[in-house]
Protein backbone atom coordinates (compact mmCIF):
# COMPACT_ATOMS: atom_id res chain seq x y z
CA UNK A 1 0.00 0.00 0.00
CA UNK A 2 1.26 3.41 -0.86
CA UNK A 3 1.12 5.50 2.32
CA UNK A 4 1.05 9.15 1.35
CA UNK A 5 2.68 11.77 3.47
CA UNK A 6 3.20 15.48 3.13
CA UNK A 7 6.63 17.04 3.02
CA UNK A 8 7.14 20.44 4.62
CA UNK A 9 10.29 22.51 4.63
CA UNK A 10 11.59 24.14 7.78
CA UNK A 11 11.01 27.93 7.77
CA UNK A 12 13.41 28.54 10.64
CA UNK A 13 17.10 29.28 10.78
CA UNK A 14 17.57 25.63 11.81
CA UNK A 15 19.68 26.76 14.72
CA UNK A 16 17.48 24.53 16.87
CA UNK A 17 16.93 20.80 16.33
CA UNK A 18 13.92 19.73 14.33
CA UNK A 19 12.08 18.32 17.31
CA UNK A 20 11.18 20.56 20.18
CA UNK A 21 13.52 19.74 23.06
CA UNK A 22 12.00 18.10 26.09
CA UNK A 23 11.75 20.34 29.08
CA UNK A 24 14.58 19.65 31.49
CA UNK A 25 13.46 17.69 34.52
CA UNK A 26 13.53 19.56 37.82
CA UNK A 27 16.65 19.09 39.88
CA UNK A 28 14.50 18.45 42.94
CA UNK A 29 10.87 17.51 43.63
CA UNK A 30 10.82 19.55 46.80
CA UNK A 31 7.72 21.76 46.81
CA UNK A 32 6.51 20.31 43.50
CA UNK A 33 3.20 18.61 42.82
CA UNK A 34 3.54 15.36 40.93
CA UNK A 35 0.63 14.26 38.77
CA UNK A 36 0.27 10.52 38.61
CA UNK A 37 -1.51 9.72 35.43
CA UNK A 38 -3.08 6.31 35.03
CA UNK A 39 -3.09 5.62 31.31
CA UNK A 40 -5.95 3.16 31.64
CA UNK A 41 -4.16 -0.14 31.30
CA UNK A 42 -4.60 -2.95 33.78
CA UNK A 43 -2.65 -2.67 37.02
CA UNK A 44 -1.10 0.69 36.28
CA UNK A 45 -3.04 1.90 39.32
CA UNK A 46 -1.06 -0.53 41.49
CA UNK A 47 2.18 0.91 40.22
CA UNK A 48 0.94 4.46 40.82
CA UNK A 49 -0.19 3.56 44.33
CA UNK A 50 3.35 2.46 45.07
CA UNK A 51 4.84 5.63 43.59
CA UNK A 52 2.35 7.83 45.43
CA UNK A 53 3.08 6.17 48.75
CA UNK A 54 6.78 6.68 48.23
CA UNK A 55 6.40 10.34 47.21
CA UNK A 56 4.00 11.16 50.04
CA UNK A 57 6.37 9.55 52.53
CA UNK A 58 8.99 12.04 51.27
CA UNK A 59 6.57 14.92 51.75
CA UNK A 60 5.84 15.42 48.08
CA UNK A 61 2.26 16.19 47.08
CA UNK A 62 0.61 14.15 44.38
CA UNK A 63 -2.36 14.54 42.06
CA UNK A 64 -4.09 11.45 40.67
CA UNK A 65 -5.51 11.58 37.17
CA UNK A 66 -6.63 8.84 34.83
CA UNK A 67 -7.32 8.42 31.15
CA UNK A 68 -10.65 6.70 30.52
CA UNK A 69 -8.98 4.29 28.13
CA UNK A 70 -5.46 3.53 27.04
CA UNK A 71 -6.68 3.35 23.44
CA UNK A 72 -7.20 7.06 23.03
CA UNK A 73 -5.43 10.28 23.84
CA UNK A 74 -6.06 11.87 27.19
CA UNK A 75 -9.09 14.19 27.14
CA UNK A 76 -8.23 17.87 26.97
CA UNK A 77 -9.79 18.47 30.39
CA UNK A 78 -7.29 16.10 32.02
CA UNK A 79 -4.33 17.66 30.21
CA UNK A 80 -5.48 21.12 31.26
CA UNK A 81 -5.93 19.95 34.86
CA UNK A 82 -2.39 18.57 34.93
CA UNK A 83 -1.00 21.71 33.31
CA UNK A 84 -2.76 23.90 35.83
CA UNK A 85 -2.31 21.91 39.04
CA UNK A 86 0.92 19.94 38.72
CA UNK A 87 4.60 20.56 38.03
CA UNK A 88 5.69 17.06 37.04
CA UNK A 89 3.88 14.11 35.50
CA UNK A 90 4.46 10.40 35.90
CA UNK A 91 2.53 8.30 33.40
CA UNK A 92 2.16 4.75 34.50
CA UNK A 93 2.57 1.92 32.08
CA UNK A 94 0.92 -1.45 32.46
CA UNK A 95 2.81 -4.40 33.74
Amino acid at each position, binding site marked *: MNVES*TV*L*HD*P*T*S*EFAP*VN*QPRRRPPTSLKGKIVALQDIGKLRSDEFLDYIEEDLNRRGIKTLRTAKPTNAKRAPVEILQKIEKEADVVVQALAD
Partner: protein
Amino acid sequence: MKPVSSIPPDGLIAVVKEDCPTCRLVEPVLQQIGSTKRGIVVYTQDDPTFPCDVPQVIDDRTLNTSFDLEIETVPTLIRHENGQEAERVVGWNRADWQRVTAVADLGEELPAHQPGCGSRSIEPDATYKLRARFGDTGIRARRIQVDQFEDEIETCFDRGWSDGLPVVPPTPERILRMLEGTSRAPDEIVGQVPPDLAPCTIERVAINAVMAGCLPEYMPVVLAALEAALEPNFTLHGILCSTCFTAPLIIVNGPITEKIGMNSSLNALGQGNRANATIGRALNLIVRNVGGGRPGEIDRSTFGAPSKYTFCFAEDESDPEWQPLSVARGVTSGANAVTLFQGEGVQGILDQRSRTPRELTRSLAAGLLAVCHPHICEWAHAVLVISPEHYSIFRAAGWDRDRITDALFEATTRNGEDVVQGAGGIAEGVPKNRAGEMVPKFPPDGLLLVRAGGQAGLYSAILAGWPGGRAYKESHPITREIIE
Protein backbone atom coordinates in the same frame (compact mmCIF):
# COMPACT_ATOMS: atom_id res chain seq x y z
CA MET B 1 -3.76 -1.51 -17.76
CA LYS B 2 -0.07 -1.82 -17.09
CA PRO B 3 1.48 0.14 -14.26
CA VAL B 4 3.73 3.02 -15.16
CA SER B 5 7.03 1.52 -16.12
CA SER B 6 10.41 2.80 -17.08
CA ILE B 7 10.64 4.42 -20.46
CA PRO B 8 11.51 1.87 -23.21
CA PRO B 9 15.14 2.37 -24.30
CA ASP B 10 14.34 1.60 -27.94
CA GLY B 11 11.34 2.06 -30.18
CA LEU B 12 8.43 4.43 -30.53
CA ILE B 13 6.66 6.27 -27.74
CA ALA B 14 3.62 8.52 -27.91
CA VAL B 15 2.16 10.67 -25.16
CA VAL B 16 -1.51 11.60 -25.53
CA LYS B 17 -4.61 12.71 -23.69
CA GLU B 18 -8.18 11.92 -24.60
CA ASP B 19 -9.22 15.52 -24.02
CA CYS B 20 -7.11 16.64 -27.00
CA PRO B 21 -8.86 16.71 -30.42
CA THR B 22 -5.58 16.07 -32.21
CA CYS B 23 -4.90 13.04 -30.03
CA ARG B 24 -8.35 11.72 -30.90
CA LEU B 25 -7.59 12.48 -34.55
CA VAL B 26 -4.46 10.30 -34.46
CA GLU B 27 -6.14 7.40 -32.60
CA PRO B 28 -6.39 5.30 -35.82
CA VAL B 29 -2.78 6.20 -36.59
CA LEU B 30 -1.68 4.89 -33.20
CA GLN B 31 -3.74 1.73 -33.82
CA GLN B 32 -2.01 1.32 -37.19
CA ILE B 33 1.47 1.73 -35.67
CA GLY B 34 0.52 -0.59 -32.80
CA SER B 35 -0.41 -3.33 -35.23
CA THR B 36 3.02 -3.29 -36.87
CA LYS B 37 5.84 -5.51 -35.74
CA ARG B 38 7.70 -2.54 -34.36
CA GLY B 39 4.72 -1.42 -32.27
CA ILE B 40 4.42 1.66 -30.07
CA VAL B 41 4.11 2.38 -26.34
CA VAL B 42 1.42 5.00 -25.70
CA TYR B 43 1.32 6.93 -22.43
CA THR B 44 -2.11 8.34 -21.72
CA GLN B 45 -2.45 11.33 -19.42
CA ASP B 46 -6.15 11.36 -18.60
CA ASP B 47 -8.11 8.29 -19.74
CA PRO B 48 -6.58 4.85 -19.32
CA THR B 49 -8.97 3.45 -21.96
CA PHE B 50 -7.69 5.85 -24.59
CA PRO B 51 -6.55 5.15 -27.27
CA CYS B 52 -8.51 1.93 -27.71
CA ASP B 53 -7.22 -1.10 -29.59
CA VAL B 54 -3.58 -0.22 -29.11
CA PRO B 55 -1.65 -3.09 -27.48
CA GLN B 56 0.63 -1.11 -25.18
CA VAL B 57 -1.21 1.72 -23.46
CA ILE B 58 0.27 2.83 -20.14
CA ASP B 59 -1.64 4.86 -17.58
CA ASP B 60 0.30 8.07 -16.94
CA ARG B 61 -2.32 9.93 -14.96
CA THR B 62 0.35 10.58 -12.35
CA LEU B 63 2.21 12.35 -15.19
CA ASN B 64 5.44 10.77 -14.02
CA THR B 65 6.55 9.77 -17.52
CA SER B 66 5.24 12.98 -19.07
CA PHE B 67 7.38 14.88 -16.56
CA ASP B 68 10.44 12.72 -17.18
CA LEU B 69 10.08 13.14 -20.94
CA GLU B 70 9.50 16.89 -20.57
CA ILE B 71 6.33 16.71 -22.64
CA GLU B 72 4.87 20.12 -23.44
CA THR B 73 2.43 19.21 -26.22
CA VAL B 74 0.22 16.23 -26.92
CA PRO B 75 0.38 14.23 -28.99
CA THR B 76 4.15 13.88 -28.88
CA LEU B 77 5.82 11.11 -30.82
CA ILE B 78 9.33 10.09 -29.77
CA ARG B 79 11.77 7.57 -31.18
CA HIS B 80 14.28 6.16 -28.74
CA GLU B 81 17.48 4.50 -29.78
CA ASN B 82 19.92 2.89 -27.35
CA GLY B 83 18.26 4.64 -24.44
CA GLN B 84 18.57 8.05 -26.07
CA GLU B 85 15.97 10.20 -27.70
CA ALA B 86 16.66 10.17 -31.44
CA GLU B 87 13.67 12.09 -32.78
CA ARG B 88 10.63 13.96 -31.48
CA VAL B 89 7.52 15.26 -33.24
CA VAL B 90 4.86 17.40 -31.53
CA GLY B 91 1.28 17.62 -32.76
CA TRP B 92 0.23 15.80 -35.93
CA ASN B 93 2.36 16.23 -39.05
CA ARG B 94 1.85 13.38 -41.48
CA ALA B 95 5.23 13.61 -43.21
CA ASP B 96 7.12 13.74 -39.91
CA TRP B 97 5.14 10.88 -38.38
CA GLN B 98 5.68 8.77 -41.54
CA ARG B 99 9.42 9.46 -41.39
CA VAL B 100 9.82 8.75 -37.67
CA THR B 101 7.68 5.59 -37.73
CA ALA B 102 8.89 4.42 -41.14
CA VAL B 103 5.25 3.61 -42.02
CA ALA B 104 4.87 4.95 -45.55
CA ASP B 105 1.06 5.20 -45.80
CA LEU B 106 0.49 6.38 -42.24
CA GLY B 107 -2.53 8.64 -41.77
CA GLU B 108 -3.21 9.16 -45.46
CA GLU B 109 -6.86 9.85 -44.68
CA LEU B 110 -6.00 12.59 -42.12
CA PRO B 111 -5.17 16.23 -42.82
CA ALA B 112 -1.51 16.86 -43.45
CA HIS B 113 -1.07 18.85 -40.29
CA GLN B 114 -2.89 19.68 -37.06
CA PRO B 115 -1.31 21.28 -33.99
CA GLY B 116 -1.61 19.53 -30.65
CA CYS B 117 -2.76 20.67 -27.22
CA GLY B 118 -0.90 21.54 -24.05
CA SER B 119 0.35 18.62 -21.99
CA ARG B 120 -1.34 18.12 -18.62
CA SER B 121 2.14 18.14 -17.10
CA ILE B 122 2.52 21.84 -17.87
CA GLU B 123 -0.87 22.96 -16.65
CA PRO B 124 -0.74 25.77 -14.05
CA ASP B 125 0.73 24.47 -10.78
CA ALA B 126 1.27 20.96 -12.20
CA THR B 127 4.90 21.79 -12.94
CA TYR B 128 5.65 22.49 -9.30
CA LYS B 129 3.78 19.46 -8.02
CA LEU B 130 5.49 17.17 -10.51
CA ARG B 131 8.91 18.64 -9.75
CA ALA B 132 8.26 18.13 -6.06
CA ARG B 133 7.04 14.59 -6.61
CA PHE B 134 9.41 13.28 -9.25
CA GLY B 135 12.27 15.71 -9.66
CA ASP B 136 14.99 17.47 -7.71
CA THR B 137 13.49 20.54 -6.04
CA GLY B 138 16.86 21.97 -5.04
CA ILE B 139 15.29 23.18 -1.80
CA ARG B 140 17.91 23.13 0.92
CA ALA B 141 15.78 23.75 4.00
CA ARG B 142 15.30 20.74 6.20
CA ARG B 143 12.58 18.31 5.03
CA ILE B 144 9.94 17.37 7.53
CA GLN B 145 7.74 14.41 6.77
CA VAL B 146 4.17 14.75 8.02
CA ASP B 147 2.27 11.51 8.38
CA GLN B 148 -0.86 11.12 6.26
CA PHE B 149 -3.02 11.15 9.38
CA GLU B 150 -1.51 14.35 10.76
CA ASP B 151 -2.97 17.74 9.99
CA GLU B 152 -0.13 19.75 8.50
CA ILE B 153 -1.57 23.06 9.71
CA GLU B 154 -1.55 21.71 13.25
CA THR B 155 2.02 20.51 12.66
CA CYS B 156 3.02 24.08 11.85
CA PHE B 157 1.41 25.24 15.10
CA ASP B 158 3.08 22.47 17.08
CA ARG B 159 6.49 23.38 15.75
CA GLY B 160 6.08 27.00 16.74
CA TRP B 161 6.10 28.38 13.20
CA SER B 162 2.87 30.36 13.50
CA ASP B 163 2.07 33.85 14.71
CA GLY B 164 -1.10 32.43 16.24
CA LEU B 165 -3.12 32.29 13.04
CA PRO B 166 -3.07 29.27 10.75
CA VAL B 167 -0.24 29.32 8.22
CA VAL B 168 -0.18 27.84 4.74
CA PRO B 169 1.90 24.66 5.04
CA PRO B 170 5.23 25.20 3.24
CA THR B 171 5.20 22.26 0.86
CA PRO B 172 7.89 21.93 -1.84
CA GLU B 173 5.50 22.76 -4.67
CA ARG B 174 4.35 25.94 -2.95
CA ILE B 175 7.94 26.98 -2.24
CA LEU B 176 8.98 26.33 -5.85
CA ARG B 177 6.04 28.40 -7.05
CA MET B 178 6.94 31.22 -4.67
CA LEU B 179 10.54 31.21 -5.88
CA GLU B 180 9.23 31.95 -9.38
CA GLY B 181 8.36 35.38 -8.02
CA THR B 182 11.99 36.46 -8.04
CA SER B 183 14.93 36.05 -10.39
CA ARG B 184 17.31 35.94 -7.44
CA ALA B 185 19.05 32.66 -6.65
CA PRO B 186 17.43 30.67 -3.83
CA ASP B 187 20.72 30.37 -1.95
CA GLU B 188 21.51 34.09 -2.04
CA ILE B 189 21.71 35.48 1.47
CA VAL B 190 19.53 38.56 1.91
CA GLY B 191 20.99 39.43 5.29
CA GLN B 192 21.18 38.44 8.91
CA VAL B 193 17.88 38.61 10.75
CA PRO B 194 17.86 39.71 14.37
CA PRO B 195 17.69 38.82 17.15
CA ASP B 196 19.60 35.62 16.37
CA LEU B 197 21.37 37.30 13.44
CA ALA B 198 20.54 34.21 11.43
CA PRO B 199 21.46 34.26 7.73
CA CYS B 200 18.31 34.46 5.66
CA THR B 201 18.34 33.13 2.11
CA ILE B 202 15.90 33.93 -0.67
CA GLU B 203 14.61 30.38 -0.22
CA ARG B 204 13.90 30.99 3.45
CA VAL B 205 12.04 34.18 2.55
CA ALA B 206 9.98 32.18 0.06
CA ILE B 207 9.11 29.56 2.69
CA ASN B 208 7.85 32.19 5.09
CA ALA B 209 6.05 34.03 2.29
CA VAL B 210 4.22 30.78 1.51
CA MET B 211 3.23 30.45 5.14
CA ALA B 212 2.01 34.04 5.24
CA GLY B 213 -0.22 33.40 2.22
CA CYS B 214 1.65 35.52 -0.33
CA LEU B 215 1.42 35.15 -4.08
CA PRO B 216 4.74 34.83 -5.98
CA GLU B 217 4.32 38.30 -7.46
CA TYR B 218 4.56 39.77 -3.96
CA MET B 219 8.11 38.45 -3.55
CA PRO B 220 9.92 41.60 -4.78
CA VAL B 221 8.00 43.66 -2.21
CA VAL B 222 8.66 41.18 0.59
CA LEU B 223 12.36 41.12 -0.27
CA ALA B 224 12.63 44.89 -0.42
CA ALA B 225 10.78 45.16 2.91
CA LEU B 226 13.13 42.65 4.50
CA GLU B 227 16.20 44.40 3.16
CA ALA B 228 14.92 47.73 4.44
CA ALA B 229 14.15 46.18 7.83
CA LEU B 230 17.70 44.83 8.01
CA GLU B 231 19.29 48.24 7.45
CA PRO B 232 21.09 49.07 10.71
CA ASN B 233 19.28 52.40 10.98
CA PHE B 234 15.94 50.64 11.08
CA THR B 235 17.00 49.07 14.40
CA LEU B 236 14.91 45.95 13.91
CA HIS B 237 16.44 44.26 16.92
CA GLY B 238 15.48 47.21 19.08
CA ILE B 239 11.86 47.42 17.99
CA LEU B 240 11.51 43.69 18.35
CA CYS B 241 12.81 43.33 21.87
CA SER B 242 11.42 46.63 23.12
CA THR B 243 8.70 46.75 25.76
CA CYS B 244 6.89 49.18 23.43
CA PHE B 245 4.14 48.42 20.96
CA THR B 246 6.12 48.68 17.78
CA ALA B 247 6.37 46.49 14.69
CA PRO B 248 7.60 47.02 11.13
CA LEU B 249 5.04 49.03 9.18
CA ILE B 250 5.40 48.81 5.40
CA ILE B 251 4.22 51.57 3.06
CA VAL B 252 4.44 50.67 -0.62
CA ASN B 253 4.73 53.14 -3.51
CA GLY B 254 4.86 52.83 -7.27
CA PRO B 255 3.08 51.01 -10.06
CA ILE B 256 3.67 47.63 -8.43
CA THR B 257 0.94 48.43 -5.92
CA GLU B 258 -1.63 48.35 -8.70
CA LYS B 259 0.05 45.42 -10.40
CA ILE B 260 -0.27 43.19 -7.35
CA GLY B 261 -3.62 44.59 -6.29
CA MET B 262 -2.69 46.43 -3.11
CA ASN B 263 -5.25 48.54 -1.33
CA SER B 264 -4.69 52.25 -0.78
CA SER B 265 -8.35 53.18 -0.62
CA LEU B 266 -11.31 52.06 1.48
CA ASN B 267 -10.12 50.23 4.59
CA ALA B 268 -6.49 50.56 3.45
CA LEU B 269 -5.24 50.14 7.01
CA GLY B 270 -7.57 47.23 7.69
CA GLN B 271 -8.28 43.71 6.63
CA GLY B 272 -9.50 42.18 3.41
CA ASN B 273 -6.71 42.67 0.88
CA ARG B 274 -4.42 39.73 0.31
CA ALA B 275 -1.31 41.67 -0.69
CA ASN B 276 -1.59 44.17 2.17
CA ALA B 277 -2.24 41.41 4.69
CA THR B 278 0.31 38.85 3.64
CA ILE B 279 3.32 41.01 2.74
CA GLY B 280 3.36 42.46 6.23
CA ARG B 281 2.75 39.05 7.74
CA ALA B 282 5.60 37.51 5.75
CA LEU B 283 8.06 40.01 7.20
CA ASN B 284 6.87 39.33 10.74
CA LEU B 285 7.05 35.57 10.20
CA ILE B 286 10.63 35.91 8.95
CA VAL B 287 11.52 37.83 12.09
CA ARG B 288 9.86 35.11 14.16
CA ASN B 289 11.05 32.01 12.37
CA VAL B 290 14.43 32.98 10.96
CA GLY B 291 15.42 35.64 13.45
CA GLY B 292 13.97 33.82 16.43
CA GLY B 293 12.00 36.86 17.61
CA ARG B 294 9.12 35.32 19.50
CA PRO B 295 6.85 36.99 22.05
CA GLY B 296 7.62 36.05 25.59
CA GLU B 297 11.20 35.29 24.64
CA ILE B 298 13.28 38.11 23.14
CA ASP B 299 10.11 39.99 22.13
CA ARG B 300 9.39 41.73 25.43
CA SER B 301 6.55 44.00 24.32
CA THR B 302 4.37 44.89 27.30
CA PHE B 303 1.17 44.92 25.27
CA GLY B 304 2.14 44.06 21.73
CA ALA B 305 -0.11 45.39 18.98
CA PRO B 306 -2.15 44.05 16.06
CA SER B 307 0.62 45.41 13.83
CA LYS B 308 2.82 42.60 15.08
CA TYR B 309 0.71 40.29 12.88
CA THR B 310 0.85 42.50 9.83
CA PHE B 311 0.79 46.18 8.89
CA CYS B 312 1.25 47.06 5.25
CA PHE B 313 -0.59 49.31 2.84
CA ALA B 314 -0.09 51.27 -0.37
CA GLU B 315 -0.08 55.02 -0.77
CA ASP B 316 -2.79 56.54 -2.96
CA GLU B 317 -0.88 58.10 -5.85
CA SER B 318 -3.91 58.88 -7.99
CA ASP B 319 -3.56 62.65 -7.58
CA PRO B 320 -0.74 64.01 -9.78
CA GLU B 321 -0.48 67.06 -7.53
CA TRP B 322 0.61 64.91 -4.62
CA GLN B 323 4.26 63.94 -4.26
CA PRO B 324 4.43 60.27 -3.20
CA LEU B 325 6.21 59.43 0.04
CA SER B 326 8.93 57.48 -1.77
CA VAL B 327 9.71 60.43 -4.06
CA ALA B 328 9.85 62.77 -1.08
CA ARG B 329 12.40 60.39 0.38
CA GLY B 330 14.65 60.34 -2.68
CA VAL B 331 13.32 57.57 -4.92
CA THR B 332 12.86 58.37 -8.61
CA SER B 333 9.31 59.18 -9.61
CA GLY B 334 7.60 56.14 -11.09
CA ALA B 335 9.91 53.67 -9.36
CA ASN B 336 8.58 51.10 -6.90
CA ALA B 337 9.65 51.44 -3.29
CA VAL B 338 8.91 50.42 0.26
CA THR B 339 9.19 52.62 3.29
CA LEU B 340 9.67 50.82 6.57
CA PHE B 341 8.49 52.60 9.65
CA GLN B 342 8.66 51.60 13.30
CA GLY B 343 4.90 51.80 13.82
CA GLU B 344 2.19 51.05 16.31
CA GLY B 345 -1.51 50.92 15.64
CA VAL B 346 -3.97 53.45 14.30
CA GLN B 347 -5.20 56.54 16.13
CA GLY B 348 -7.99 58.22 14.23
CA ILE B 349 -8.50 61.98 14.13
CA LEU B 350 -12.05 63.06 13.41
CA ASP B 351 -12.30 66.64 12.23
CA GLN B 352 -15.46 67.35 10.30
CA ARG B 353 -15.56 71.10 10.84
CA SER B 354 -12.24 72.50 9.58
CA ARG B 355 -12.62 74.16 6.20
CA THR B 356 -9.25 75.91 5.82
CA PRO B 357 -5.77 74.41 5.79
CA ARG B 358 -4.77 76.43 8.85
CA GLU B 359 -7.72 75.16 10.86
CA LEU B 360 -7.06 71.60 9.76
CA THR B 361 -3.33 71.85 10.47
CA ARG B 362 -3.98 72.97 14.03
CA SER B 363 -6.50 70.19 14.45
CA LEU B 364 -4.19 67.46 13.13
CA ALA B 365 -1.30 68.86 15.16
CA ALA B 366 -3.39 68.60 18.32
CA GLY B 367 -3.83 64.91 17.64
CA LEU B 368 -0.15 64.41 16.81
CA LEU B 369 0.91 65.89 20.12
CA ALA B 370 -0.51 62.81 21.83
CA VAL B 371 2.05 60.49 20.17
CA CYS B 372 3.85 58.66 23.00
CA HIS B 373 2.63 61.22 25.53
CA PRO B 374 1.57 64.86 25.13
CA HIS B 375 4.68 66.04 26.96
CA ILE B 376 7.23 63.72 25.36
CA CYS B 377 9.00 65.42 22.49
CA GLU B 378 11.59 64.41 19.88
CA TRP B 379 11.44 60.77 20.90
CA ALA B 380 9.11 59.23 18.37
CA HIS B 381 8.41 59.57 14.70
CA ALA B 382 4.88 59.40 13.34
CA VAL B 383 3.09 58.73 10.08
CA LEU B 384 0.08 60.89 9.35
CA VAL B 385 -2.26 59.24 6.86
CA ILE B 386 -4.38 61.93 5.23
CA SER B 387 -7.74 60.94 3.80
CA PRO B 388 -8.96 62.22 0.42
CA GLU B 389 -11.50 64.57 2.03
CA HIS B 390 -8.99 66.10 4.43
CA TYR B 391 -6.45 66.37 1.61
CA SER B 392 -8.97 68.17 -0.58
CA ILE B 393 -8.93 71.07 1.92
CA PHE B 394 -5.16 71.40 1.57
CA ARG B 395 -5.27 70.85 -2.18
CA ALA B 396 -7.90 73.52 -2.75
CA ALA B 397 -5.61 76.03 -1.05
CA GLY B 398 -2.58 74.93 -3.08
CA TRP B 399 -0.77 73.31 -0.16
CA ASP B 400 1.60 70.54 -1.18
CA ARG B 401 3.46 67.97 0.90
CA ASP B 402 6.24 70.34 1.98
CA ARG B 403 3.83 73.11 2.93
CA ILE B 404 1.67 70.77 5.02
CA THR B 405 4.71 69.21 6.69
CA ASP B 406 6.21 72.57 7.57
CA ALA B 407 2.91 73.81 8.96
CA LEU B 408 2.49 70.68 11.08
CA PHE B 409 6.03 71.03 12.44
CA GLU B 410 5.33 74.60 13.35
CA ALA B 411 2.01 73.73 14.96
CA THR B 412 3.54 70.92 17.00
CA THR B 413 6.40 73.03 18.33
CA ARG B 414 5.62 74.34 21.81
CA ASN B 415 7.02 76.48 24.55
CA GLY B 416 9.29 74.37 26.68
CA GLU B 417 7.64 75.58 29.85
CA ASP B 418 4.41 73.87 28.73
CA VAL B 419 6.00 70.43 28.24
CA VAL B 420 8.75 70.17 30.87
CA GLN B 421 8.48 67.60 33.60
CA GLY B 422 5.94 68.80 36.13
CA ALA B 423 4.21 71.27 33.79
CA GLY B 424 0.46 71.21 34.35
CA GLY B 425 0.96 68.84 37.25
CA ILE B 426 2.17 66.09 34.90
CA ALA B 427 5.38 64.43 35.94
CA GLU B 428 6.27 63.22 32.46
CA GLY B 429 7.89 65.65 30.06
CA VAL B 430 11.11 67.03 28.62
CA PRO B 431 13.94 67.98 31.01
CA LYS B 432 13.25 71.11 33.04
CA ASN B 433 16.28 72.90 31.65
CA ARG B 434 14.44 73.26 28.35
CA ALA B 435 11.78 75.50 29.81
CA GLY B 436 13.11 78.50 27.94
CA GLU B 437 13.25 76.83 24.52
CA MET B 438 10.78 76.18 21.75
CA VAL B 439 10.57 72.38 21.70
CA PRO B 440 9.54 70.55 18.52
CA LYS B 441 7.37 67.45 18.92
CA PHE B 442 9.20 65.49 16.26
CA PRO B 443 12.85 65.17 15.18
CA PRO B 444 13.70 66.68 11.76
CA ASP B 445 12.62 63.70 9.62
CA GLY B 446 10.15 62.52 12.21
CA LEU B 447 6.84 63.15 10.50
CA LEU B 448 5.90 61.24 7.35
CA LEU B 449 2.80 62.17 5.39
CA VAL B 450 0.95 59.58 3.35
CA ARG B 451 -2.26 59.73 1.36
CA ALA B 452 -4.66 56.82 1.65
CA GLY B 453 -8.21 55.95 2.54
CA GLY B 454 -11.70 55.92 1.08
CA GLN B 455 -13.27 58.92 -0.59
CA ALA B 456 -15.75 59.63 2.19
CA GLY B 457 -14.68 60.64 5.68
CA LEU B 458 -13.21 63.82 7.09
CA TYR B 459 -10.70 61.80 9.06
CA SER B 460 -7.00 61.28 9.16
CA ALA B 461 -5.02 58.60 10.93
CA ILE B 462 -1.94 58.79 13.11
CA LEU B 463 0.38 55.83 13.13
CA ALA B 464 2.56 56.50 16.13
CA GLY B 465 6.18 55.53 16.07
CA TRP B 466 8.64 53.95 18.41
CA PRO B 467 9.64 55.92 21.50
CA GLY B 468 12.90 54.00 21.29
CA GLY B 469 13.51 56.35 18.42
CA ARG B 470 14.49 58.93 21.04
CA ALA B 471 17.96 58.07 19.84
CA TYR B 472 16.66 59.62 16.66
CA LYS B 473 20.05 60.07 15.13
CA GLU B 474 20.42 56.29 15.12
CA SER B 475 16.90 55.07 14.39
CA HIS B 476 15.14 56.12 11.21
CA PRO B 477 12.42 55.08 8.81
CA ILE B 478 14.02 53.42 5.78
CA THR B 479 12.98 53.77 2.15
CA ARG B 480 14.27 51.32 -0.41
CA GLU B 481 13.57 50.79 -4.07
CA ILE B 482 11.90 47.53 -5.04
CA ILE B 483 13.90 45.61 -7.61
CA GLU B 484 11.67 43.33 -9.66
